């Protein structure tokens, strides 16, 4: 697809979509949203880029190797954070009992490891969407 209007609008609008997705992910524990919704918005921005610029440009921007690392790294990060609870004397994914920093309710940095876990989920969901779409439309 070689359309100047579509390409220009995409170039203008993709950073705002990505900022919105990151905002939803980082505020997942104090406002509506969270890892899954924010990751879906992030993945949709990259799908829009692929639709207007083509698969080869998108593969140059975000190769399959990088999305694979994000996809595996997100879930490994989640499991490691869960195992921290076991090593510090609690159960799997125990948060307040083993002394994570709780902070004041309503701040961005609060709630123990919930922001870290939400960031991992967001990365995993976004890279899964991108990998799914690239795998379907790629010519074989």
């Amino acid at each position, binding site marked *: 697809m070689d359309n100047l209007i579509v390409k220009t609008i995409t170039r203008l609008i993709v950073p705002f979509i990505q900022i919105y997705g990151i905002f*939803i992910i980082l505020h997942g524990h104090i406002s*509506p*949203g*969270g890892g*899954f*919704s924010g990751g*879906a*918005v992030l*993945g*949709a921005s990259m*799908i829009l880029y692929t*639709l207007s610029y083509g698969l080869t440009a998108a593969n140059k921007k975000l190769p399959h190797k990088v999305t694979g690392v994000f996809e595996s790294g997100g879930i490994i990060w989640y499991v490691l954070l869960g195992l921290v609870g076991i090593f510090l004397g609690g159960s799997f994914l125990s948060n307040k009992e083993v002394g994570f920093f709780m902070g004041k309710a309503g701040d961005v940095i609060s709630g123990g490891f919930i922001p870290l876990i939400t960031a991992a989920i967001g990365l995993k969901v976004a890279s899964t*969407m991108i990998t*799914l*779409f690239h795998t*379907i*439309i790629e010519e074989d």
Partner: protein
Amino acid sequence: MELLNVILVVFLIVCAIAVERTKDLLSAVIIFDAYSLTMAVLWLLLKAPDIALTEAAIGAGVTTILFVSVISRTRRVKK
């Protein structure tokens, strides 16, 4: 607000029946997109904004794109 709710639910039912009755698969996907968008507005009216966010991103955005790309790989009209 009550009236808007009723109108949206009736539109939802009409969309769900139309998806099943349509022979052209691309039209069916677009009607399904309208169904998802109406469902997102309804979740917002039911005071579940996080579900509405997810429905608008996944149901109306990504699912439609995946369906359209799959249809472009196969036949468009169901036999």
